[in-house]
């Protein structure tokens, strides 16, 4: 039984990371109806920025002396990574997506795949393909509950994800920026007529989604120990599936979807075979899209004829 709970705990923390990334996918899809494949690379860049920022702040020296990395510096690392990713997300939208915004739907999709490939390969060039150990910007503390081992990092991941989801939900539902985003997602031209600077709103969406991905990247690094330039590919794909599972465009849905994918993956790996941990995600994707394409929390909208 403790094994089961251990798998559940691990699944939830993994799922939380998927959820954080899924939020970015879901926001962008909601507003532009675009699968932002490059989002997984924004996540990767976020993780690397955190890696280098921690290095610049002297984490290696502290570690060698056995000293903990101060919390305020950890927050600085987080902030730097989130800003860098936000900037990257905005740039990608500006340079690659905006020119094809009004093109047929598949053009932006392929553009997104292209940008994803580009950033991946740039990542290998700049960061080198070698996996890196993630610096312990938060010192890991372990505690055991009835044979189940929980770490402060796993708890942090879970709580940060819930907090960011709540914050995002508040932003979208209760603030002017959020209202503008929702207006843009329903009807771009009508939003313009309200006096909304739609380009700025779309940029803001990319910035926020990308910042969340960077947070996910850092938490991922802390939890999973190593990062590499290809870390985003599969993780991003799973996060996207999470967004679809929860109902694309739906913020709580992304989180529910992320947690479910994380759990499913972990349980399949633990009880069926780790060989099929990736396959289960795709199986879930296929099943959900065929049975309920609007996702768990999504709303059906019938096409007008």
């Amino acid at each position: 039984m403790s094994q089961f709970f251990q798998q559940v705990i691990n699944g939830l923390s993994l799922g939380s990371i998927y959820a954080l990334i899924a939020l970015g996918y879901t926001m962008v899809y909601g507003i532009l109806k675009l699968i932002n494949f490059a989002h997984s690379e924004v996540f990767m860049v976020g993780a690397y920025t955190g890696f280098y920022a921690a290095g610049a702040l002297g984490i290696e020296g502290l570690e060698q002396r056995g000293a903990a990395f101060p919390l305020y510096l950890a927050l600085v690392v987080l902030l730097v990574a989130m800003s860098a990713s936000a900037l990257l997300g905005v740039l990608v939208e500006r340079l690659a997506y905006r020119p094809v915004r009004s093109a047929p739907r598949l053009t932006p999709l392929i553009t997104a795949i292209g940008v994803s490939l580009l950033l991946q390969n740039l990542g290998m060039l700049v960061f080198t393909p070698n996996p890196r150990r993630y610096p312990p910007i938060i010192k890991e503390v372990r505690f055991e509950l009835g044979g189940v081992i929980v770490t402060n990092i796993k708890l942090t991941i879970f709580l940060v994800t819930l907090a960011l989801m709540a914050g995002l939900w508040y932003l979208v539902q209760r603030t002017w920026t959020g209202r503008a985003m929702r207006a843009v997602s329903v009807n771009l031209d009508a939003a313009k007529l309200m006096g909304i600077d739609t380009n700025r709103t779309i940029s803001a969406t990319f910035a926020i989604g990308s910042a969340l991905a960077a947070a996910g990247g850092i938490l991922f690094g802390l939890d999973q120990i190593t990062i590499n330039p290809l870390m985003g590919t599969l993780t991003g794909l799973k996060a996207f599936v999470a967004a679809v599972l929860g109902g694309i465009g739906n913020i709580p849905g992304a989180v529910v979807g992320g947690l479910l994918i994380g759990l499913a993956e972990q349980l399949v790996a633990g009880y069926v075979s780790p060989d099929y941990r990736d396959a289960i995600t795709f199986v879930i994707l296929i099943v959900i899209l065929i049975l309920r394409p609007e996702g768990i929390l999504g709303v059906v909208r019938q096409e007008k004829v």
Partner: protein
Amino acid sequence: MPGHPQLGTKDWLIRVVISSGVVAGIWGLGLGVQAGLIEYVQRIVLLCGINIILAVGLNLINGTTGQFSIGHAGFMAVGAYATAFVGVKLAPGVAAALGAGALADGVVFNVALLVGALLSGVAGLAVGVPSLRLKGDYLAIVTLGFGEIIRLVFNNTKALGSATGYFGDSPAGLPPYTSFFWVWLWVVIVVLIVRNITFSQSGRSLIAIREDEIAAEAMATPTTRLKVTAFTVSAATAGIAGGLFAHMQSGIRPEDFKFEKSIDMIVMIIIGGLGSISGAVIGGIFLAVTLELMRDLQEYRLVLYALLLVIIMIVRPEGLLGTRELSLSFFKRKAGAK
């Protein structure tokens, strides 16, 4: 072809003569290529042919029918593994019956290719039936998922070598059946099949599905059946390409059929122009050649490759030809499909 006369024996005779001429032409060309080109260039020429088959086949579903698959590498994998496996199992028997040599090899290879095409077609059918109810991005993502699942299955199948891949029973790997003659003969066959489908009643209906599915249905078009058919044919052609690829490589492994391979195929048809057969041909050649030419760029190669893709999408998303066709006299076609 308005006012086409009755097809008489003479017409069939002409067709047979033309076909024989084409076969002989490819054969002769093959001899020339073997004699005149270094093996490196020969390999690129083979790759071009395989790419053309991939691109023309994928174009039938992505371009003509407007249903977006980004997981076609999976079908290529099915064809590759099936062809390789069947070829290995078949070879001793056929060699015993016909005597070892070019004839036996040709028989084994083409039977194996057909089996490969059949099985990848079946895989296409199995994937297409549930998936093709979806549209646009969602369909794309599901095909991606299926493509990955197919690869994971091969990755976990011991009998086919798991991650090491399948190389047949001999340490030297699969026999190098793939020659200029077979590749380009199959190029001609696949291009002809796809072209004849595209410019027929079924092809018109496929384009109608792309243009407006609801209207197509209202015109009594069995859209699902047609989409699945196109998907199956498309998967089968990918299977043929896979089989040719396997025997060019002397061996295959799951890693050969990753998502990136599907992207490569999409890049081919995007470059040429979605919906254009001649565009797909150009795109297939372009990709094989460009990737080779850029090899000297080392680690910058893939960066440039991705950059090229993005720039094409921004500057010329409809590709080189759009949905137009180059009017090659080879096709003997009037400007009907413009």
